[in-house]
């Protein structure tokens, strides 16, 4: 990552305009041309320095639901359980963490009832108990990490 990559990451974390020619507008702001911005953005995504780029939808406001789910997975079956959990399109993120509860996944579903359906299905397929921890209240979201 060079200076230009850093400025792209910092700028695009904050936001992206709804203008006719947004890449050209952001590129001008960064002092590069549109094709360079597009090439670099494509590479940052390919190299997984950025994991996504686009509108962040609030699932709850489009009638869906989010939940964080914790599972205690035995080490020996970790890969197998990962495969099962990741196979659901409703699983948006999944992280391994250093703890007895070593798997934490985020569900984003179209309807609230699907949260329970997916969790029950995962319990059935893995034989493990999952703890559903939907947010009850949100206090802050959206820190940007400067590089």
């Amino acid at each position: 990552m060079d200076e230009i990559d850093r400025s792209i990451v910092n700028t695009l974390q904050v936001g992206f305009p709804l203008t006719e020619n947004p890449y050209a507008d952001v590129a001008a702001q960064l002092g590069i041309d549109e094709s360079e911005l597009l090439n670099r953005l494509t590479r940052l995504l390919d190299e997984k320095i950025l994991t996504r780029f686009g509108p962040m939808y609030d699932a709850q406001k489009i009638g869906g639901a989010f939940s964080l789910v914790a599972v205690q997975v035995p080490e020996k079956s970790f890969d197998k359980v990962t495969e099962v959990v990741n196979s659901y399109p409703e699983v948006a993120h999944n992280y391994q963490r250093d703890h007895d509860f070593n798997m934490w996944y985020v569900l984003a579903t179209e309807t609230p009832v699907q949260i329970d359906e997916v969790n029950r299905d995962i319990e059935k397929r893995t034989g493990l108990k999952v703890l559903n921890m939907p947010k009850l209240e949100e206090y802050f979201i959206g820190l940007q990490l400067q590089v």
Partner: protein
Amino acid sequence: MNSVTVQQASGQGQDMNLDELDRKIIHATQSGLPLASRPYDMIARRIGITGDEVRQRMLNMQQQGIIRRIAAVPNHYALGYKGNGMTVWNVPDERISELGPLVGALDFVSHCYHRPRYLPDWPYNLFAMVHAHDREQALLLVDKIADLLGEADRGHDVLFSCRILKKTGMRLFT
């Protein structure tokens, strides 16, 4: 007409209507914006409306909070943030609405939520994500939160992520 009416979770009493075109825009953009010049025109052609209409509808959705923002999501690890800890706290339920915003306002906390306990396995009800360059630095941040909470901290833990198993973002209307 297939239309979804959504009650706002925050209870502001306003219903939001998403019509078929909004849903098509969501479907066309939820995995990302096209990486090409005039991306909104490109989405518009797929849906069969004008670029102006796509932008106007996305602006409306942004104003209603349906779109939180249009932005890039970084991989914390790739940016050198290797101490990514989910800190979890057991605080008295009657004080959480007062304490949650204080923790959320700290400049190293990216997300802060009240979530349910599962006794006896899981006593923690306040979650705050902290990001630092390494675990040692992250633990200093945990101490800062503990200082802030004082005697309301009835126990806490920090869970470091050691591997991203999946990170695709949500896929609705698929």
